[in-house]
């Protein structure tokens, strides 16, 4: 009984928040200067339009994998040796390009099925950056600049390996997993888990489309929220103020990492946002943004907290912060 009341309160608050937000927005559209509304809308819609195809590609591939590749198949191919395991897990993104929104539930299930924690975490971290879809969108976002793509790949791989190795040396006295909750197991909010082993091609196609639609909802809302916040910042944050933050080689990295965490962008879209800061923020901070955001952000944190103990999630955020911050600083001071 307690549980259901709590759920009810939460959803009630959600509706109030959502409708309040909506009302505010309509007021803003009516009373703001026309030019400002138009500029805000242009930026907001263009980010959404730009990122949607890439999110769709990610979601479709992810749906294919969710339906055709079992966790057992993946865990069977993981080597027993620590470093071999880490390296294989970090390269999984190339064969297993699920976006950073889908990788949290997958990782959780992998760990629950007996995959070592450090392997799961390395996989989760690497997949978000070192995957063809993310690298392709990075390539497009930076106007075909291969230097950015290669550097992002190398730094992403290194980060995943360092974070995974650090997790492997954490004390293993207690389990970092949460007790299995009664709630729906899939954090991706899809109710299509049951239709996995349908036989006919038609059923399979429908299952893929169903799954794609459901996951598009799950991922798309974070994308739109991110685009909205980003467009707000671009429209209303005075440029000179932002510029003063972007100058310092250390402060700029911190600011961009905070942005990456708060914007919660899909890693398939974040390069497009990162591009808009080029020229105002230090190069290191741009890369820190494109590293830290995919590795960990608000929505990932929430999804992780559903499956792992809070203590572990906090440790993971700290490790990830230190790694991304160090790389950002290194770029600024040594100019990789």
């Amino acid at each position, binding site marked *: 009984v307690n549980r259901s009341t709590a759920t009810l309160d939460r959803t009630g608050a*959600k*509706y109030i*928040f*959502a409708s309040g937000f*909506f009302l505010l*927005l309509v007021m803003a*559209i009516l009373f703001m*200067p026309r*030019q*400002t509304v*138009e*500029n805000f*809308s*242009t*930026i*907001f*819609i*263009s*980010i959404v*339009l*730009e990122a*949607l*195809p890439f999110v*769709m590609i990610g979601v*479709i591939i992810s749906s294919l994998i969710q339906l055709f590749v079992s966790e057992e198949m993946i865990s069977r191919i993981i080597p027993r040796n620590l470093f071999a395991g880490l390296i294989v897990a970090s390269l999984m993104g190339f064969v297993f390009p699920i976006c950073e929104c889908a990788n949290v539930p997958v990782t959780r299930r992998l760990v629950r099925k007996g995959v070592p924690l450090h392997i799961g975490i390395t996989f989760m971290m690497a997949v978000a950056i070192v995957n063809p879809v993310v690298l392709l969108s990075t390539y*497009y*976002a*930076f*106007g*075909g*600049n*291969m230097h950015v793509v290669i550097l992002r790949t190398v730094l992403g791989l290194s980060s995943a390996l360092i974070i995974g190795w650090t997790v492997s040396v954490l004390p293993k006295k207690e389990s970092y997993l949460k007790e299995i909750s009664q709630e729906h197991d899939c954090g991706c909010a899809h*109710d299509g888990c049951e239709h996995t082993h349908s036989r006919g091609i038609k059923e399979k196609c*429908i299952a893929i*489309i*169903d799954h794609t*639609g459901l996951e*598009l*909802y799950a991922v*798309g*809302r974070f994308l*739109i929220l991110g*685009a*909205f916040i*980003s*467009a707000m910042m*671009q429209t209303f*944050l005075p*440029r*000179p103020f932002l*510029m003063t933050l972007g*100058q310092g080689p250390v402060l700029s990295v911190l600011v961009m990492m905070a942005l990456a965490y708060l914007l919660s962008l899909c890693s398939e879209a974040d390069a*497009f*946002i990162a*591009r*808009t800061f*080029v*020229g*105002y923020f230090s*190069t290191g901070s741009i890369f820190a943004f494109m590293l830290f955001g995919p590795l960990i952000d608000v929505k990932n944190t929430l999804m992780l907290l559903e499956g792992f103990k809070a203590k572990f999630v906090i440790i993971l955020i700290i490790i990830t912060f230190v790694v991304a911050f160090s790389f950002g600083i290194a770029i600024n001071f040594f100019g990789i």
Partner: protein
Amino acid sequence: VKKGTLNQWIWFIILAGFSLYLGRLLFTGDIHYFIHPKMFFFIRFSFVIFLLLCVNQGRRILFSKRKEALKAGYILFILPLLLGFAVAPKGLNEAAAANRGLQLAGSDSSTMESSRQLKASEIIEQLGPEETLEVETALYSGIIEDISKRRSLYMGRRIGIEGFVFRFDHFSPDQFIVARMQIVCCAADALLTGILVQSNEAPSFETSSWVRVEGIIGEREYYDAWNDKTSVVPAVKAELMHPVEKPLNVYVYPSE
């Protein structure tokens, strides 16, 4: 209507809305206001997927039996549709300029550009010494970039350029920047790109108004308030200036 089915209906309307909106943008060409033409393929792709999902959602409505709470996340999907249909923005306007970054000819603000050979750079090499360098829209970014790269080639040359008037607060009355919005992928990454103009008639041209400037490229001291540095940058000594119409496509694109 059961709540589970209501969810299904709302999602159907959202998918139909996106299909309709994307279809309209692609059909009317308004997509230009948001996205670089090289990305149109991906927009067509997402249009097709939205149509497919929409049709499939119609099927799902018929078979939905689940009981579930109304999803608050739908409001987020309605946002871009609401703004897209109700505001129907026609691209970034000049009011956005003050909050964008600036790539001024001769200042080295863009550190991440790849060092490519530009098509636009051939223009100046083929031009006779007395001829006017006409900065056309297609070559705008390329020529500005080339002026930054190989400044000496352009010194003393006659130039004709169109754009809107942009000023910082600290500008002296006889100067402004003639600028265009450059986009790489979408309007969210728009940058100002342009060249400094010097003329005694400058005060009679309002900020944000569109202008054609003809004159000789020289040099002038320029103070950048963003990094508190003064440098010598190329500047057009205007001999002829007159207002022009705002072009249909306000953006310019970086050269390939």
